[in-house]
């Protein structure tokens, strides 16, 4: 291959990458430019750049979508899911990584199957059970359900991280007379901290973004999550596109900010290949 065709290849490669970057970003850019425009201007020409800055859209979206309450509910839901998954999956991942129980292969196969089980296979009786127990509209309880759904991913990830802990480290600790819980807290936790962040951020995003379970179990206006509050604006405000786009911005910006801040963990976690689509 001569240098000019090599250069051509390099440039055409970049063009392709930029085109796909635009495909990913353009719909989000449309949200950004239209979130500060008056509704009439959006309807007239959604592609034009804003001439002013209509901050009222954000105030309206915040109050109509009940975003204050939504943020609180989403935080409680996500925190519950993340804490439950992190604690339970690191305990299980530790045992499975060390092959410390004889039935570990069966348990691994179980979690692999559980990871791919459709929600619709257990949704309807689970809903009915929650109704019987009076747990519908209970945000932490729904957080525990999401934790159960995310558990296989957490277990696999944590197991992979525990595999990196040298066995000698653990043996040395036992010789020094350290008990299991001291071992986990002072020796294993520091080593697997990146794993905890990875699982925390990916499971956190899953819980924050969840739709099927939350929309089914949280029907009361006082228990709606942020995304459900935004969804309830559709219909009433589908004609006021400026406010809709401002609402979308309020949901998009914090998630993208956290994603960009922790992108290393997200990308590494996803690249490990054991995440649901």
């Amino acid at each position: 291959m001569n240098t000019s065709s090599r250069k051509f290849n390099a440039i055409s490669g970049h063009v392709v990458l930029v085109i796909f970057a635009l495909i990913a970003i353009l719909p989000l850019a449309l949200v950004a430019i239209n979130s500060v425009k008056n509704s009439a201007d959006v309807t007239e020409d959604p592609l034009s750049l804003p001439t002013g800055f209509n901050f009222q859209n954000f105030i309206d979206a915040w109050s109509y979508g009940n975003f204050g309450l939504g943020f609180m509910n989403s935080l409680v839901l996500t925190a519950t899911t993340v804490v439950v998954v992190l604690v339970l999956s690191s305990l299980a991942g530790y045992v499975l990584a060390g092959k410390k129980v004889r039935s570990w292969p069966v348990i691994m196969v179980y979690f692999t199957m559980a990871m791919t089980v459709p929600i619709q296979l257990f949704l309807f009786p689970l809903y009915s059970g929650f109704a019987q127990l009076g747990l519908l509209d209970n945000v932490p309880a729904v957080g525990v359900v999401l934790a159960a759904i995310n558990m296989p991913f957490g277990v696999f990830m944590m197991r992979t991280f525990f595999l990196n802990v040298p066995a000698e480290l653990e043996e040395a600790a036992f010789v020094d007379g350290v008990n299991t819980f001291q071992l986990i807290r002072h020796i294993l936790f520091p080593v697997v901290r990146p794993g905890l962040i990875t699982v925390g951020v990916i499971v956190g995003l899953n819980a924050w973004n969840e739709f099927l379970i939350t929309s089914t179990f949280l029907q009361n206006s006082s228990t709606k999550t942020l995304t459900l509050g935004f969804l309830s604006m559709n219909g009433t405000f589908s004609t006021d596109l400026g406010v809709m786009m401002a609402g979308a911005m309020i949901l998009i910006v914090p998630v993208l900010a956290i994603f960009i801040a922790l992108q290393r963990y997200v990308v590494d976690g996803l690249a490990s290949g054991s995440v649901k689509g």
Partner: protein
Amino acid sequence: MTLSLKTPSRNALDARQGVRSRKTFHRRRTIINYLLLAPALLLSIVVVVVPGILTAVASFTDWDGLGFSANFVGTDNFTDIFNDPTFYTALGNNIKWVLLFLTIPVALGLLTASLLLRRKKTRTLYQVIYLMPYVLAPVVNAMVWLSIIYNPHGGVVGYLRDRGMSIEPPLANLDMSIYAVAGVDMWHYWGFLTVIYLGAMRQTPVEQVEAAMVEGANAFQIFRHVYLPNIRATLLLMGVMIVIFSFLAFDYVYLLTQGGPAHSSEVMGTYAYAFAFSSFQFGKAAAVGLIMSFFGLVASFVYTWLSRRDLSK
């Protein structure tokens, strides 16, 4: 003399005690290990397995989901479903979903991943951009496309129509609705495959790539004969994952069209959901859930079998 008699017996005693204490130590450790494993396992069983078994039972009843009373109706639910043309629309749409997702996002993912392989400086930036739609909530993505792109009154589609282009609102069109919905889902999904494939390609041994270069292979030949064979396992595994999740598709369909217009974009997920929460026929919903799961489970067995090598590490 007394001393020499005493010494071995004490050693034997010590040894016996040592064996016993080591045994109890091991038994205690095993119990502790099972206790550490139990919470994750129990939570998964209570939330997933028990209701899953109940679904299988409920599919043979006329359960309304409200109480525990239900009558056994044999295979009536399944007969009704198999006689319902909507079921076949839904099944057909799930199969279209599989075919679309196995081609378009996979091709885009492979193309972008192979282009990013040699771009060490910009690699992270591109991956972050490609993943942006993936990390956003389906509710947000769906509402964005619904209101600012597909919307005939104020969206991009409306803008083009106002300027004389004869495009129909995609979500309201019987022939296009399923593709319009799948388009949004693929837009949100393909960047994930880029990251997965790039991660796998980077595991390719450098010597293989260098050897191919020395022999004068061009970029495509290196991709085809070096990288592709190396990521075969990942391609297969992701393919199986795509099949599984295509049969479970729900979020984007429900948010964008609720299966409409006239059931044209119905998938099994929305079809089951409507039985449960629109007409309170939980028995029928359970039956559809079971049928969906069958397709998913077949793929899931394949997935478990394919990943057996990873599991036994």
